[in-house]
C-alpha cells in the first residue's frame, strides 16, 4: 500500500509538472499520441505472446523522439502529426486485441494496459520512478533559463540563439517517458487526464508560470493518492479513481476561483 501511494504520488507529480509545461508549449496532443503508442505496443506484445510493457515503452519513447522531426520534415503542425499517429495507434491496438488468442479483452493483462493497476507497483518500478523524477528535475534545473525563455516565446528564444528544437524534443521525450511509466498505474486511456487536469487546476490558483508548474505537480500527487485510496477502499479501477480525484480537486479550485473573482 505504501509503495503504491509513493509511486502514485511520484507519477502524479511528474505528470502534473510535464502537463503544465506541455500545456504552455501547446503540446497537449503529444500526450495522446505517446500514451496510445504505449497502448499499441502493449497490445501488439499480447498478440505476439510477449511481456506487454517492454514494447509499449519502446514504441512510446520512439514516438516521442520522432514526433518533432516528422512534423518539421513534413512541415505539419505538431498537433496534426500527433493526432494522425494517435489514430494509427488506436487502430493497431484494436486490431491486435481482436487478433490476440483467447478472451483478451476481458483478460487481466489487457485490463492493466487499458485501465491501469495498483499491482503494477513493484519496488523496482518505484526505483525507476524515483530515478526519472531526479532526472527530470536535474534537466529542468540545468536548462531552466533557456526552457523558460522558450516557454515565454519560442520564436524570440530562437532569435536569441537558443536551440529551440533541441530543447523541445528533449522535453517531449521526457514527457513521453513519464507518460509510459505513469500509464502503468492510470492505464493508457486515462493517463492524459493526469497530465492535464492538474495543469488546468493550477490555472485557477496561480498567476506565475513557475507557481503553476509547482502547483500542478502538487495537485497531480494529491490526485493520485486520493485515487489510490479510493480504489483500495471501493475496489474500483485505479486510473478512473485518480481521474475522479483530479476532477474533484479541479471543481473545488474552479469554484473558489470563481467566488474570489466575484468578490474582488
Amino acid at each position, binding site marked *: 500500500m505504501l509503495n503504491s501511494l509513493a509511486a502514485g504520488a511520484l507519477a502524479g507529480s511528474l505528470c502534473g509538472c510535464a502537463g503544465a509545461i506541455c500545456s504552455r508549449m501547446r503540446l497537449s496532443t503529444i500526450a495522446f499520441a505517446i500514451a496510445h503508442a504505449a497502448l499499441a505496443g502493449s497490445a501488439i506484445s499480447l498478440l505476439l505472446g510477449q511481456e506487454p510493457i517492454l514494447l509499449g515503452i519502446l514504441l512510446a519513447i520512439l514516438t516521442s523522439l520522432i514526433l518533432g522531426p516528422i512534423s518539421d520534415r513534413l512541415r505539419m503542425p505538431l498537433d496534426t502529426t500527433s493526432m494522425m499517429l494517435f489514430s494509427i495507434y488506436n487502430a493497431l491496438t484494436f486490431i491486435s486485441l481482436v487478433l490476440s488468442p483467447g478472451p483478451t479483452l476481458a483478460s487481466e493483462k489487457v485490463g492493466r494496459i487499458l485501465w491501469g493497476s495498483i499491482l503494477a507497483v513493484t519496488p523496482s518500478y518505484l526505483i525507476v520512478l524515483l530515478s526519472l523524477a531526479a532526472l527530470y528535475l536535474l534537466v529542468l534545473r540545468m536548462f531552466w533559463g533557456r526552457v523558460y525563455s522558450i516557454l*515565454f516565446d519560442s520564436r524570440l528564444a530562437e532569435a536569441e540563439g537558443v536551440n529551440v528544437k533541441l530543447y523541445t524534443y528533449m522535453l517531449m521525450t521526457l514527457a513521453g517517458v513519464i507518460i509510459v511509466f505513469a500509464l502503468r498505474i492510470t492505464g493508457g486511456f486515462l493517463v492524459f487526464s493526469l497530465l492535464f487536469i492538474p495543469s488546468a487546476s493550477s490555472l485557477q490558483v496561480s498567476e506565475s508560470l513557475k507557481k*503553476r508548474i509547482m502547483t500542478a505537480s502538487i495537485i497531480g500527487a494529491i490526485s493520485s493518492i486520493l485515487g489510490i485510496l479510493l480504489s483500495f477502499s471501493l475496489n474500483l479501477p485505479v486510473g478512473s479513481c485518480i481521474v475522479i480525484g483530479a476532477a474533484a480537486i479541479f471543481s473545488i479550485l474552479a469554484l473558489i476561483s470563481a467566488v474570489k473573482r466575484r468578490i474582488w
Partner: protein
Amino acid sequence: MGENRLAVKLDRVSTYYFGERRPAITDISLKIPRGSLTLIIGPNGSGKTTLLETILGLLAHKGGRIEVLGHELPRHAMKVRRRCGYLPQDFMRPKDEPFLAKEVVAMGLASNRDLGRLRDDDWRRVYEVLELLGIEKLAEKPIGKLSGGQQQKMMLARALVRSPDLLLLDEPFSAMDEASRRFISEDLLPDHLENGCTILMVSHDVAFKPREWGLMVRLEQGRVKEVVVNDLKPNA
C-alpha cells in the same frame, strides 16, 4: 571598405515563404558597416521584417550569400544570434501571460547562459537597463498587465540587456509616446552606436529617426528600391 568592417553583408539574397512561388525578398545586396545605424523603410508587405528575419537566420534564404558579424549563414546562425538583440514587431502579450516583466527582460541574458540560473550580476544588469529606460518600477508587474508602450520598452530592454553587437529593431516606436520616441532616437541609440553596436531599424515613421543614421534602405515589393547614404552623419 574592408570586408571585416562590415556587420552585415548580403549578396543577391532571396527568401521564400513555405509554399509560395514568389520570393518575399528578391536579390537583396547590402553592405552594412559595423557601428552604423541603418534604417529600413517601405510600405506594408515590402519585405522589411522578412529582411530582418533573414539576417537573423530565422528564415532560410534560397539564393545568394549572407555574412553577419563575420560569420556565414545559415551555418553559424546560432553563433550570430547570440551576439544579436531583437525587438520583434509583434510584442504584445495577453493580459493573463504568467510572466513578470523583469523575468522577460532577464530571459535576454538566460538565453546566452549555458547552464544554471542567473547570478546577482545578471540581475544588476537587468535593473541597470530597466532604469536606463525608466521602467524599473514596472519590473515586478506581470508583462501582460502593462500598456502597449510599456511592453514595447520591456522588449527593447530585453534586446539591450544582452549588450548586443547587432541590434535589430522592428518598428520600435509603434506603441510609444512622443517623449519615449525622442529619448530612444536622440539619446539611447546614439549611445549604443558610440559603443560600437550596429543597429538595423525597420520603421514606417521616419520622423523619429536618430540623426546618426548612416544608410536608409527603401524596400518595395521585396526589392531594394533605393539606398541613401547620410553624408551629414555626425561621426562620418
